[in-house]
């Protein structure tokens, strides 16, 4: 890992057609990277981790990526 790894990972996540995620935050933490954010399915979370492991082997990855909830709203906002 070098000073440009965060940028390379962030661009790879956005530009790889199998991932295409622009909403993942990539933060350097010690000798590894922490990936944070939300995606639309567990499959996409798996694809992100697979891509980073394949393209950036040897870098320790901690992932904190959630799947956005898609339940009906419990209340409406009243705009008077």
């Amino acid at each position, binding site marked *: 890992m070098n000073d440009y790894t965060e940028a390379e990972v962030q661009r790879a996540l956005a530009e790889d057609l199998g991932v*295409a995620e622009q909403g993942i935050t990539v933060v350097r933490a010690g000798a590894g990277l922490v990936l944070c954010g939300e995606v*639309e399915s567990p499959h996409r979370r798996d694809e992100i981790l697979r891509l980073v492991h394949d393209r950036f082997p040897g870098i320790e990855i901690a992932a904190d990526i959630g799947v*956005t909830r898609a339940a*009906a*709203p419990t209340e409406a*906002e*009243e*705009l008077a």
Partner: protein
Amino acid sequence: MIRIAAVGDVHIDRDVLGRFRPALEELPDRADVLLLAGDLTRHGTEAEAKCVATEFGGLGVPVIAVLGNHDHHCDEVPGVLSTLTDAGITVLEGDSTVVDIDGVRLGVAGVKGFGGGFAGRCASEFGEPEMKAFVRTTGTVAERLGAALRDLDCDVRVALTHYAPVPDTLAGEPLEIYPFLGSYLLGQAIDSAPTDLAVHGHAHHGSERGRTPGGVRVRNVAHPVIKQAYSVFNLARDHVSPPTPSGI
């Protein structure tokens, strides 16, 4: 009362099919119309648009959309548009539509929008051709949004964009990327008409509520922001402009 449901940035592909549908089945009991604030697909393929049509088609309420930057990525916009339109979804880009809801005319004008940044910290139409083209693109779409809003003949006027018209709803995003998330020119266009509500997406780490300098309520409905299938905004009857008496 007019009940407006809205969500953006759903990024539908086969792996998401069916996730929104249970909540969407309840939507006609909760709202009169659904607005989709762009980034309907993952990369803008016709195949993904078919998934959007499956997920958001046949809801029993009008569905009105704008496209987002993801919907342009694979350069298949004509196929995406025809697929959505065939599924009964109205897609706006510099134009508007009016829906009659129990005698109240809801007008929605929409554009994808574009970036450039916000007043005092924005890009200018100056320098290299690429820079001028970037800023000119935003200016052109903002002018089209303003004209579409002003030309609407309706009781309730809503602006629908993908990019943000104000910085308020970007709170949570890094300041460095604000110019890629929206433009004050969109806010100026919204303020050029008596707009009741502006809805946008695009900023996944932003926040829900803001206001234009002219006082129009702005809501960021990006799915990762609202963390539910859609938000619902109730516009109270007394907020709705009284109809002009005819024959006078």
